[in-house]
C-alpha cells in the first residue's frame, strides 16, 4: 500500500471525472459514485489509522511518497524544485481520519440535494479531495495548491446551492480566504528563496551519488558548506519541502528568512513578520476574532452538508497549517508571540461565546460557537505544553465531529420548517423526542460535558494553558482563567437554546411556510447523527484511541519548537 496516501487524495478526484462523464439525469448513479468514493476513502483512512505505527520512530512521516514534479534550472539562482511529497504523521493522521468520516456523512446529508446534482457532487468531491490533499501534502507548494483548490468548489457550493444571501456570503468567504492565502503565498515565496534541500543539493554538488538515500553525514556536510558559503548559487537546490524548512540549518546564509540574518523590516525581524503573516493567513481560516465574520455568513447561507464540511474540515485546515507549518518553521517567533496568540485565542473563545449567546438564529449560534471552540485550539497551541498542544489537536478532531452533528441538527430543523430561528419553535421535544435526545447529546458534547470528546480536548487545553506559566513560561495564568469563562458561556447559550427550542409547550410559529410538520428523524438522519454521537462518546471515553497515536508526533513537534525558540 505504498500509494495509499495518493489514493486517498485522488479517489475523490477520479470520482469527479466519473461523475462528469455520467449523464445529467442519472442522479442515483451520481450519488452512488460519490458515496462509493467517499466510503472507499473512509475505509482507506481507517486502514491508515490502524496501520499507522505510533511507536516507530520519533519523527515519523509514514507512507511517504516523494516524486519530483517541477524542476527548473534557474542558473545562478539554483534549482527550482517542487515535489509531489505526501506523508502522514500523528498530526495529519487525526485530520485524515476526520476527513474520511465527515465526507461520508456529508454525502449522506447531501442525498436530498435536488438542484443540479451532477455539478454539486462533482464540486463536493473536488473539495473533499483537496482537503485531503491539504492534510497530506508535505511540500509547501503542494499544500498551497490544495489550499487554494478548496476555495473554488466552496465558493460555488455556497454561491449556487446556498440560501437567500448566498452571493454575499460566498464572495465574503472567498475574499477573506483569498486574502489569507495571499499572506501565505508571500511567506511561501520568502521561505522558498531562503530554504534549500540538503539532500538534493548534495547530489547536485556531486557530494553524493544520485538515486540513493543521502546519508545524514553528507547532509550535515552540505549544511555546513552552505553555511560557510563554499556552496553557493547554482549548486543549491531550493525547496518547498516542509520538513526541510523546519530545520534552521537548511536556510541559506544571508537569505531573508535565515534565522541568523537578523534582517528587519519596520524594526521587526523579518522572520517575526513572516510568522505574523502566516499566522493571520491561517487564522482567517481558523477563524479567529476579529477576522471571523465570514464564518457566520458562510454557515448561514451554505446548505447543510456544506456547513458540515466547512465547520468540520475547512476550519481545521487553518489549525493544521499552524501545526504543520507556522510553528515548526518559525519556532522562535512562535515563542515570542505566544502571548499574542494565546490572547487572540482567548478573545475568540469569549467573544465568540458572547456573540453566540446573543444570536436568534440557531445556525448562527452554532457558527459562533465554532469560533469560540476554535479559540481553544489557539490557546492550547500557544501554551506550548504537552497538554496544551495535544488538547489543541484533540479539540480540532473533536470539534470536527461535534460541529458536524450540530450543523446536521440545524439542517434537520430547517428541512422541516424552512426556518432556523430559535424563537419560531417551542417544545420540539414533544414532536421529535429522538431528535431532541440527539440534540441534547450534541449540545452537551459541545459545551464540554465529561464523557464526550470535547471535554477531554478543552480540559487538556485549559490544563496546558494554566500550567504554561510554570512549565514553558508562555502564557500568563489569567488567560486560562478567562478562557474558562468560555465553558460557562458555552453552557449558557446551549442550555438557553435547548430551553427555548425544545422544552416547554409544543409550538411552532404559525407563519412558517406550509405549517411544517415537525416529524421525528428519518432513517437517513439517524444514519448521520447516531454514528457521530457514538464516535463523540467513544473518543470522550477512550481518548487513548487517538492520543496514543498522535501524541508522540505532537511531542516531537513540541520539542522541536521548544528547542529552537
Amino acid at each position, binding site marked *: 500500500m505504498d500509494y495509499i496516501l495518493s489514493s486517498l487524495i485522488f479517489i475523490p478526484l477520479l470520482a469527479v471525472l466519473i461523475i462528469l462523464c455520467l449523464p445529467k439525469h442519472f442522479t442515483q448513479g451520481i450519488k452512488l459514485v460519490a458515496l462509493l468514493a467517499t466510503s472507499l476513502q473512509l475505509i482507506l483512512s481507517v486502514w491508515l489509522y490502524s496501520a499507522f505505527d505510533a511507536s516507530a520512530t520519533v519523527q515519523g512521516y509514514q507512507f511517504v511518497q516523494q516524486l519530483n514534479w517541477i524542476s527548473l534550472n534557474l542558473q545562478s539562482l539554483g534549482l527550482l524544485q517542487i515535489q509531489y511529497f505526501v506523508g502522514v504523521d500523528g498530526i495529519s493522521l487525526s485530520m485524515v481520519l476526520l476527513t474520511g468520516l465527515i465526507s461520508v456523512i456529508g454525502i449522506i446529508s447531501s442525498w436530498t440535494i435536488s438542484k443540479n446534482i451532477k455539478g454539486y457532487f462533482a464540486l463536493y468531491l473536488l473539495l473533499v479531495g483537496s482537503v485531503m490533499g491539504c492534510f497530506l501534502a508535505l511540500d509547501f507548494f503542494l499544500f498551497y495548491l490544495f489550499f487554494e483548490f478548496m476555495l473554488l468548489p466552496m465558493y460555488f457550493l455556497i454561491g449556487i446551492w446556498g440560501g437567500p444571501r448566498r452571493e454575499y456570503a460566498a464572495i465574503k468567504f472567498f475574499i477573506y480566504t483569498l486574502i489569507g492565502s495571499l499572506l501565505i503565498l508571500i511567506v511561501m515565496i520568502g521561505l522558498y528563496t531562503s530554504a534549500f534541500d540538503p539532500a538534493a543539493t548534495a547530489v547536485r554538488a556531486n557530494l553524493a551519488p544520485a538515486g540513493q538515500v543521502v546519508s545524514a553525514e553528507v547532509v550535515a556536510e552540505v549544511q555546513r558548506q552552505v553555511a560557510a558559503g563554499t556552496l553557493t548559487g547554482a549548486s543549491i537546490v531550493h525547496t518547498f519541502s516542509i520538513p526541510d524548512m523546519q530545520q534552521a540549518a537548511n536556510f541559506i546564509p544571508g537569505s531573508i528568512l535565515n534565522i541568523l540574518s537578523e534582517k528587519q523590516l519596520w524594526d521587526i525581524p523579518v522572520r517575526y513578520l513572516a510568522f505574523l503573516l502566516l499566522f493571520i493567513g491561517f487564522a482567517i481560516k481558523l477563524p479567529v476574532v476579529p477576522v471571523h465574520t465570514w464564518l457566520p455568513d458562510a454557515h448561514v447561507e451554505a446548505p447543510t452538508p456544506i456547513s458540515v464540511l466547512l465547520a468540520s474540515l475547512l476550519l481545521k485546515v487553518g489549525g493544521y497549517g499552524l501545526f504543520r507549518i507556522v510553528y515548526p518553521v518559525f519556532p522562535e517567533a512562535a515563542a515570542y508571540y505566544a502571548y499574542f496568540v494565546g490572547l487572540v485565542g482567548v478573545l475568540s473563545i469569549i467573544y465568540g461565546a458572547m456573540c453566540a449567546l446573543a444570536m436568534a438564529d440557531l445556525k448562527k449560534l452554532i457558527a459562533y460557537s465554532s469560533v469560540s471552540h476554535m479559540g481553544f485550539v489557539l490557546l492550547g497551541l500557544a501554551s506550548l505544553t504537552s497538554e496544551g498542544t495535544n488538547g489543541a489537536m484533540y479539540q480540532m478532531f473533536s470539534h470536527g465531529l461535534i460541529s458536524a452533528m450540530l450543523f446536521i441538527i440545524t439542517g434537520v430543523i430547517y428541512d422541516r420548517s424552512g426556518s432556523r430561528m430559535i424563537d419560531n419553535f417551542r417544545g420540539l421535544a414533544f414532536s421529535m423526542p429522538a431528535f431532541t435526545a440527539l440534540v441534547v447529546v450534541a449540545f452537551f458534547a459541545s459545551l464540554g460535558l465529561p464523557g464526550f470528546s470535547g471535554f477531554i480536548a478543552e480540559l487538556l487545553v485549559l490544563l496546558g494553558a494554566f500550567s504554561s506559566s510554570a512549565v514553558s513560561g508562555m502564557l500568563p495564568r489569567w488567560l486560562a482563567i478567562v478562557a474558562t469563562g468560555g465553558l460557562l458561556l458555552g453552557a449558557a447559550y446551549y442550555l438557553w437554546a435547548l430551553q427555548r427550542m425544545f*422544552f416547554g409547550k409544543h409550538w411552532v410559529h404559525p407563519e412558517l411556510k406550509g405549517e411544517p410538520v415537525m416529524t421525528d428523524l428519518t432513517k437517513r438522519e439517524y444514519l448521520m447523527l447516531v454514528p457521530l454521537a457514538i464516535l463523540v462518546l467513544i473518543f470522550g471515553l477512550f481518548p487513548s484511541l487517538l492520543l496514543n497515536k498522535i501524541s508522540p508526533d505532537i511531542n516531537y513537534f513540541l520539542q522541536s519548537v521548544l528547542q529552537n525558540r
Partner: protein
Amino acid sequence: MNQVAAPLLTPEQNSLALWALLVLVLPLIAGGLVLIFGKKLPRQGDWLAIATTGLAFFLALYLFFQVWENKTVHVSWSWFQLATGKTSIISFTAGVYLDNLAVLMLVIVTFISLLVQVFSVIYMHGEWRYHHYFGYLGIFTFSMLGIVLSDNLLLLFIFWELVGFSSYLLIGFWYEKDAAVLAGKKAFLFNRVGDIGFLFGIFLLYTYLQTFDLTLLKNAIATGVNQGGTFIFPVLTGQADSVTLSYTLLTLAGLGIFCGCVGKSAQFPLQVWLPDAMEGPTPVSSLIHAATMVAAGVYLLSRCFPFFTEDALLVIAIIGALTALLGALAATAQYDIKKILAFSTISQLGYMVMGMGVGAHDASLLHLVTHAFFKASLFLNAGIVIHAMHHAAHEFSDEHSDVQDIRNMGGFRKILPFTFYAYIPAAAALVGLPLFSGFLSKDAILTGAWAWAGLMSQNGNLLYYLIPVFGFGSVLLTGFYMAKHCFYIFFGESKLYKEPELLRENKTAEASGLLLVPVAILAVLSLAFFFSLNPFSYAGSWVMQGVSWQKLLTGQPGLSGGLLPAITTYLHDASYISLVTAILSVLLAVVGIWLGWLSYKKAVTAGSLSTITAPTSGFSRLAYYHFYLDAFYEKVIINPFMRLSGGAAAFDKNFIDYSLNTFAKIMVVLAKLIGWVDRWLVDGTVHLLVKVAGLIGRLGRFMQNGKVQSYYIFSLLGLILLFLYILAF
C-alpha cells in the same frame, strides 16, 4: 511522569476494585437500557432499574463489610497517555479508591437510590416518560457512585460534572413546565460556575505537583515543609527539582476546590439554584437535592481536606456558617413544603461545610450520613403529602390551588397518620432532638465549632466565636420552621379539601405500600441508635470513628498542619464544651419549636392561614424572596452580561462587519473611479490615438484612391514640398 506509586496489588484488592467497578456501571447499564428500550420492556423497565440498583446495593454492602475499618483499596489503570519531553510520558489514570468513607457513601447512595426508585414506581406512575425517569436516575446513580469511587481529582471532576448533567435532566424532567426547564438550566449553570473554580484548584495542584491522584497528592502534601509563608516540597517522582509554593497559592488552590463544593452543595453565594431545583419530581429532590448530590460537596471537602490551608479553612467555615444561617432564615418565611425543605437542606449543608471549615471533619461527615437519611425521609414524606394533595386536586379538578403550599394543608395527622409518624422522627432529627440521629451530628459539629473558636480566639480575637453563634442561631431557626410547618401540615383542619378520603389512596390504606415502606425504613434510620450505641454522645459513634481524620487521612492532616490535633487536644482539655453544647442546642431547639407553635397559633387566631399570599412586610419578605439574591444576580450579573453579549453581537455586526462592508464599498467606489479613469483617460488616450491613426489612415486612403490623377497631384505636391524644402533650407 507520575507513575502511580502502586502498592503491591493483591488479587483480593483487584477483585474488590472490580466489584466496585461493577457497582459503578450497573446503574449505568440499567439506565441506558431503560432509556433506549424502555418503551418495549414490560412496565417500561422499572423493575430492571430497581433490580440492578438493588444488586448494586448488596454489592456495596459486601464491599462495605470487606473494607470498613479493615483496609483501603487503591487500584488505578492508565486511561490515556501523552508523550512529553525526551522519553517520558504524562499518564492520566483512572482508578478506584475504597476506604471507609467511600464504602460508607457507596452504601448510602445505593440504598437511598434504591428506596427512591421503589418510591417512584407509584409516585411517577402513569407519567408519560416513565422509562426516561428511571434511565436518568440510573445515570445519576452511576455518576454519584463515580464521585465516591474516584481515586483522582480529574475523574472526580468528570463525575462531578456528570451528576450536574443528570441533575439537569431530572430537574427538567417535566420539560413542558417552563419553570422546571429554567430551574434545570439555572442549576447546571450555577454548578458550572463552581466547577470552574474547582477546575482551577485541580489545575493549580496539577501544575506544581504533576498529578491528579489523590493518594499521591496527599503523600506529596504530607512531605511539604512549611518555611515561613512558603511550602517546600521535596523531589517528587519524575521531577528534577523540589517545588516551592507560596502559602497564598496553596490557599487559592484550596479555595478553588472549595468552589466546586460551593456550587454543588449550594453554599453562599451560589445556593440560589437549589430552591428552584424543587421543580423536579419530589423523589428526585429527595435523592439528589437532599441526600446525595448536594452532599457531594462535603464529601469533596473531606477528600481534599489535606489541601486546605488554615486560611482556606477559615473561609470555608465562614461560608458554611453564613449559608447555614441564611438558609434557615429563608426557610422560616416559606410556605411551599418543598421550598422549606430545600432551604433547610441549604442550611444543613452549611452546617456540614462549616464543620469541615472548623476542622470537625468527622462530625461533618456524620452529619452528611444522618442528614442523608432524615432529609430523604422528609422529602419522600413530603412527596406522599403532595401526592395526596394532587389526588384530591385531581378529584376536584382544581388546577389553581398550589398543592405544595402548607397553608392549603392541615389535619393530616388524622388523614395520613402513617406519614405523620414517619415525618416526625425525621423532623426531630433535623431539629436535633436527643435520641434522633441529627442530635448526634449537629452536636458534634457545634462542639467542633466551639472548640475551634476557642482555639483560634486564644489570640484575643473573639470574632471567631461568630461561627458557633451562627450555628446555634441556626438551630433555633431550624426548630422554629420545622415545628411551624409540621403544625401547618399535620394539625388543625384540612383547609382546602375537607373530605379526608379524597386524600387517601382508599378507605383502608392511606397510600400504596411502595410509597410507605421506603418512608418507614428511612424514618427508622433517623434514630440515633443506628449511628451510635449511646444515643446521647456522638463520641462513641461507629461512623465517626470510621471516618475520623486519623483514619481517612492516614494521620496526615495536610496543609492545615497542627490545627486538627490542636483542636482535639483543646477539646480534650475543655471537655465541658461538649456537654454545654448538647444542652444548649437542645434548649435552643425546644425554644424554636415553642416559637413555631406560637407562630402557628398566632396565624390560626389571626385567620391568616387561608390567605395564600406572599409575605409583604419587612424581614419575612426579605427571607421569602431569599434575600433577593436571585434578583441581585439577575440585575447585576446576568442582565448586564446579556446586554454585553448583545453588544458583542451588535459590535460584530455593526462594527466589524460594517467596517468590512464599508471597506468593501470604498473599494468598489475606488474601483469604479479607477474604472472611470480607465475608460476615459487610459482608454481615451488609446481611442484618441486610434482616431488619429484613423484620420491618417483616411488621409492615406484619400490619397490612395486608385485615381492615377490624384496620385499625380500628390506626387507633384511632394515635389513642390521638396522644392520648398530646398529653397527654405
